[in-house]
């Protein structure tokens, strides 16, 4: 590996996007749960749901701001580091990005103002409406960005032209580009993943309170609702898998073959649970279900699946890398189904919050890291699986990089992002930790509106 502009730009893009992608899934998942919590408050008028809604709004806010801050980078990084790519795809890729701004970001950021600061300012119905709009906005933003990325995976509705000496792809049909073969299935997959991640955050914090025996009613209600969402999303995830596999098989056969370490084209192709693959020797070993890959793709064990031998080696992705990231993601997905279904049954039997199952509740505290990991691994598989192409079959990653930037420049920016993001990450964790330790009872009211320290101290004493 040489430390040239391409390699450094790839590292920088991977680092900035992976850091950014910690936050939006929390916003999407938590956004939906906020709608449920607040609707319950408006319907039942119970104080406990107000407490639940307002506490999770605070967690949502801390998360959202880091998501916004790290998201600004993404809007411009195509231009800074991948300008040749930007010229090539601008006609197509730029459109969903602009649409994301016009239709999603304005909606989201506008109503966020009411969601965060409007509790005492607007009527409850208006506040709920704002919460719904923020949740909708975050999902719409997910939609447009997945559309843009999906076109890179399964490019359709374009033609290649050369204008002013620049080779580029231009749209021939906007809506066909938007609903390209992989858009909807990938969007569904991404949203379900985000719901799982958001729900696990709520379960993690609630589990912490349950163990500490604090805010019991608050924690049990939050946990139960989030568990419902996590279970539904986890179970739905593999159902999307079949459709997804079919699309990848048709449009990106080399990616599918790499996911499963399949070198020879074959019928009755196996599906690995876990294993190891060696592209040098063209061997894959591990525990596999025979014929399952054929069945997943074709609904038939005798279906033929293309192996990597069909493609020149220079067009292979990093086979073992994507094999591992993909299989780890799938294994985590299976774990989510097992854990949430078990917990749901226990909840049904009113046993979940009893001492004999407290070990399970304890496990939910650190478990929030797992969906974060699964979502990251999913994107790593999707993006590395597409290599060496930046746009599948049309433009190589090595051809997409900016021509006018130099290695030291990218080195400086990469170091800058490393420093700033590491700082942000720990500050975010610290702030989150404090909010969680303060708990839902703490509304910071004592700190409000006092000009002098003495006045504030009096207020704290009488509070």
């Amino acid at each position, binding site marked *: 590996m040489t430390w040239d502009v391409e390699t450094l730009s790839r590292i920088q893009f991977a680092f900035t996007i992976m850091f950014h992608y910690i936050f939006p899934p929390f916003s999407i998942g938590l956004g939906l749960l906020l709608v449920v919590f607040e609707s319950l408050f408006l319907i039942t008028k119970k104080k406990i749901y107000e407490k639940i809604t307002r506490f999770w709004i605070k967690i949502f806010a801390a998360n959202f701001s880091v998501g916004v801050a790290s998201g600004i980078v993404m809007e411009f990084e195509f*231009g800074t580091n991948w300008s040749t790519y930007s010229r090539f795809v601008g006609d197509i890729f730029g459109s969903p990005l602009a649409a994301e701004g016009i*239709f999603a970001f304005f*909606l989201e950021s506008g109503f966020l103002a009411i969601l965060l600061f409007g509790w005492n300012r607007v009527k409850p119905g208006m506040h709920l409406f704002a919460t719904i709009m923020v949740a909708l906005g975050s999902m719409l933003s997910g939609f447009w960005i997945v559309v843009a990325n999906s076109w890179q995976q399964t490019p359709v509705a374009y033609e290649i032209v050369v204008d002013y000496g620049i080779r580029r792809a231009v749209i021939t049909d906007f809506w066909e580009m938007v609903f390209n073969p992989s858009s909807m299935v990938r969007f569904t997959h991404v949203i379900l993943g985000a719901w799982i991640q958001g729900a696990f955050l709520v379960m993690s914090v609630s589990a912490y309170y349950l163990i500490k025996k604090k805010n019991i009613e608050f924690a049990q209600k939050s946990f139960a609702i989030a568990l419902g969402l996590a279970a539904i999303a986890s179970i739905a995830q593999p159902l999307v898998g079949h459709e997804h596999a079919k699309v990848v098989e048709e449009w990106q056969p080399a990616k599918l073959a790499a996911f499963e370490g399949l070198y020879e084209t074959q019928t009755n192709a196996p599906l690995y649970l876990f294993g190891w693959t060696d592209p040098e020797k063209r061997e894959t070993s591990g525990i596999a279900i025979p014929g399952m890959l054929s069945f997943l793709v074709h609904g038939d064990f005798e279906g033929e699946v293309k192996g990597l031998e069909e493609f020149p080696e220079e067009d292979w992705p990093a086979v073992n890398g994507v094999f591992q990231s993909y299989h780890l993601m799938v294994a985590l997905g299976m774990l989510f189904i097992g854990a949430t279904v078990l917990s749901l049954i226990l909840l049904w039997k009113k046993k979940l919050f009893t001492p004999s199952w407290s070990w399970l509740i304890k496990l939910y505290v650190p478990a929030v890291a797992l969906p974060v990991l699964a979502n990251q691994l999913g994107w790593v598989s999707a993006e590395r699986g597409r290599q060496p192409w930046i746009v599948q079959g049309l433009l190589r990653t090595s051809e997409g990089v900016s021509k006018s930037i130099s290695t030291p420049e990218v080195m400086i920016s990469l170091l800058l*992002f490393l420093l700033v993001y590491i700082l*942000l990450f720990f500050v975010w964790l610290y702030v989150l930790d404090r909010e969680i330790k303060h708990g839902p009872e703490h509304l910071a009211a004592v700190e409000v509106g006092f000009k002098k320290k003495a006045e504030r101290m009096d207020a704290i004493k009488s509070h």
Partner: protein
Amino acid sequence: MDFNIVWYILVGVLLIGYAILDGFDLGVGILHLRSKGDYNRRILMNAIGPVWDGNEVWLITAGGALFAAFPNVYATAFSSFYLPFMLLLVALIFRAVSIEFRSKEENPRWRNFWDWGFSIGSITAALLFGIAIGNVVMGFHIGSDMEYQGNFFDLLNPYSLAAGFFALSMFALHGAIYLNMKTEGELQKQIQGWIKTNYWIFVIFYLIFSGLTLYMKPEMIANFSFGQIDLPGNKHELVENHQTLISVFAWTVVFLNILAIANIPRTLAKGNYGWTFISSASMIGAIVMLFALGIFPNLMISNLDPAFNLDIYNAASSQYTLKTMAILAAFGLPFVVSYTVIIYWTYRGKVKLDENSY
């Protein structure tokens, strides 16, 4: 009138929206450290608390619109401006998270750190926006392949630095004028003092910067010179055909711009603070508009050869995309305006801290 011109105007509208709205957020950040005491600083931060995020979306959408409509400009601009742009991104990141994190912890050192982050982030961003505009006017070393051939230090020329300080003084003034509407009592009096000092600083920079522009780049007024000054490269046929109309329009904007600047101390003295704000907003809008008129139909000027300029044709997406996106934008913009109105209406009046505040 073709779709290329429509998109030139739309990107311009987004940038004017950004400069006016996030302009006062940046201004508040620039002035932040001048306010003393935790209570005052919280008031300042919460004056923009509910709106800064939405204001920043104007910039993000302008970025997306530039990518969709003029991908060659998006590609050339950000890759040539690489390091300053990375610095701008880091500045905007600090600005954003400082607002969110500052009041989460009572420790004075913690708060002080984020106060500085907020202020330095805003100052850096304002300076860099100005430097960027300065370079757009001065032109870049763009070759025949649309790629930037210069280096980092070419971007820091005296004219661009002057533009940077001009932008800094303009946003500081605009921010103070915004704060004057949102505060009361002692703090408001102090802010009115800031407006007065900042006003004269701004006027001085305005004169220097305008003079420098006319001296170094007289072609900036070629499009509205009643046909007296030539533009290197070609003028757009729309400009050729309507020399008088466009010139009269532009000079009216110049006149209104000067009127708006003069109106700031007048309305301030009369206590019509809303009008002071409208004046400074109009002033910013007019300045951005005049720059856009000045460089039209170019988006990035090559100082190697006018034939290498990136204009609204050689930098643009296909007609089909420009048309589709124009329809989408026409559908979306009324929504954008209505959200903006709802939010500003909800948070009208003086800032009051409550348990939801930063």
